């Protein structure tokens, strides 16, 4: 859909506002440019609709070099929402919203229909059509700004900090509404912000810029779990990294890697012994290659005891498993729902890797309150616990 190839923008001699940027955006993707002030987000965005011409490199939209196209035509096919909203104060809401259709010479009736249709998308009534922008609240103006970009149904929409000037509650509502709208309409969105929460909430993928250079590009999960460097980590913020850990951390990271297992060929009496030794009431059964076969518990062994059977002989109960790449948060809620004391963690081939226990849940809660690595505090708490026991 959108492709940057070694794009640079050089101002006055040798100042690189954007340097050697290459990336691709898929159709229907919501991509967020983020980075500190002056890192080149706006410059990068404006090069897409050629409000700024790149100094070097090629930007293509649907495989067509945008540099070879007529700028006016190009821009009519790309929705654009600027930070300051930019509604025309002398035009009614209808006139504002249907400006691009008017430039494209749609008939009056068609424009009016379109305006009504668009207002419906954000639950605003027809009575707003004849109002002027200064008769609307900030949030309503912002909505109209977004609708205006949607009016001629462009496949690609650029938005430069569109929700920047709003109070947090309105912003939150609009972000939600907008994300829904985007998914419903299947638009490709390029969105600029310096608000990390906003980026994490909206982005399919995020592109992190610093001093005009690309630092990392990836899904919010990828960026949260594997920040490319210290800058990204710092930019995300320690707090958020910890808070998000439970949301994005995979089971693999937090599982207990030493589950108590038993080979399927072992006899039931061996199983009992293992249970006694490890003080557990059930065992995960694996074969020689480490594939999970099921589990046995004390009751099952009890009812089969008389015969000299191996575990492979008794009917193993199927057990719920989670994949190693599953979200920790989802898996925990699963444990809680099932009322199970643990869930085995497996890979693609059902090979047993570890288990997730209720203790893991405690670890996660602990982390999100006191941080991930803080042994000092841990000692302190342990000490307090001991004291209270005494």
């Amino acid at each position, binding site marked *: 859909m959108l492709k940057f190839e070694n794009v640079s923008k050089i101002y006055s001699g040798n100042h690189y506002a954007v340097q050697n940027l290459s990336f691709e955006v898929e159709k229907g993707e919501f991509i967020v440019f983020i980075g500190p002030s002056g890192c080149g987000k706006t410059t990068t965005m404006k090069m897409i609709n050629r409000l700024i011409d790149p100094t070097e490199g090629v930007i293509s939209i649907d495989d067509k070099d945008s540099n070879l196209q007529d700028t006016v035509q190009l821009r009519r096919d790309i929705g654009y929402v600027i930070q300051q909203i*930019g*509604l*025309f*104060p*002398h*035009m009614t809401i209808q006139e504002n919203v249907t*400006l691009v259709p008017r*430039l494209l010479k749609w008939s009056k009736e068609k424009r009016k229909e379109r305006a009504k249709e668009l207002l419906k998308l954000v639950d605003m009534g027809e009575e707003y059509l004849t109002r002027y922008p*200064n*008769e609307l609240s900030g949030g309503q103006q912002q909505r109209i700004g977004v609708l205006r970009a949607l009016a001629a149904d462009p496949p690609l929409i650029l938005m430069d900090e569109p929700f920047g000037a709003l109070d947090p509650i309105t912003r939150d509502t609009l972000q939600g509404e907008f994300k829904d709208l985007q998914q419903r309409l299947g638009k490709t969105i390029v969105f600029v912000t310096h608000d990390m929460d906003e980026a994490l909430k909206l982005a399919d993928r995020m592109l992190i810029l610093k001093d005009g250079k690309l630092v990392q590009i990836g899904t919010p999960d990828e960026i949260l779990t594997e920040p490319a460097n210290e800058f990204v980590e710092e930019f995300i913020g320690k707090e958020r990294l910890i808070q998000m850990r439970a949301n994005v951390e995979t089971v693999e990271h937090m599982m207990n890697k030493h589950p108590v297992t038993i080979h399927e060929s072992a006899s039931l009496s061996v199983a009992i012994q293992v249970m006694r030794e490890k003080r557990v009431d059930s065992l995960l059964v694996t074969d020689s290659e480490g594939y999970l076969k099921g589990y046995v518990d004390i009751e099952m062994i009890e009812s089969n005891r008389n015969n000299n059977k191996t575990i492979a002989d008794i009917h193993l109960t199927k057990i719920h498993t989670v994949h190693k790449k599953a979200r920790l948060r989802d898996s925990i809620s699963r444990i809680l729902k099932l009322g199970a004391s643990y869930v085995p963690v497996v890979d693609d081939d059902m090979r047993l890797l570890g288990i997730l226990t209720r203790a893991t849940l405690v670890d996660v809660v602990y982390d999100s309150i006191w941080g991930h690595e803080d042994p000092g505090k841990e000692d302190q708490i342990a000490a307090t616990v001991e004291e209270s026991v005494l």
Partner: protein
Amino acid sequence: MNTLIEFLEVHGGEMIYLTWQHLYITLSALFLGTIVAVPLGILLNKVPRKFGQFIIGIVSIMQTFPSLAILAFVIPFLGIGQGPAIFALFIYSLLPILRNTYVGIRGVDPALNESGKGMGMSAWERVRHVELPLATPVIMSGIRLASVYLVGWATLASYIGGGGLGDFIFNGLNLYQPEFIFAGAIPVTLMALLFELTLSKMEKGMTPNGLKAAA
């Protein structure tokens, strides 16, 4: 009272004629001034800022020439009569209109211009649908200002044979006949007031609705 009626009986026709002539000179100069200065003011916003300021500077300097000097100046080139008078006054009307147009358009929020540009409005479409409507109040007040000046300056047209109410005033001054001075000055004053009123009405009428509610 009697003198007034007598005066009007003898000179009423001439007075009406001169008033009409005065109005004609003023309106012609104002019309020319507007159709030249407004597009020029728009254009000056499209050229490098320094150049725009330079042109405005030149026009400002022209404005400081004494009116009579300009009138005298056009005689060698254009001769005398109504045409040259209108031309001289037209030069005078340029500055207030040009300056207000330039400032009015410059004053349009750059964000609006960018938003228009980003949505795919051509330069002309932006002038037509964004800049001009938004600058209208300022441009109109420039035209109003120019009109009031022009009504006054148009009396000087009489010096180069352009006619108008200046004929009465200068005759009165030359012949020590105060009634002629009044017969010229009173209609001029009324005409200036009339322009002021009419144009400020137009200014309000032409201000886009969305801008009015804000005020």
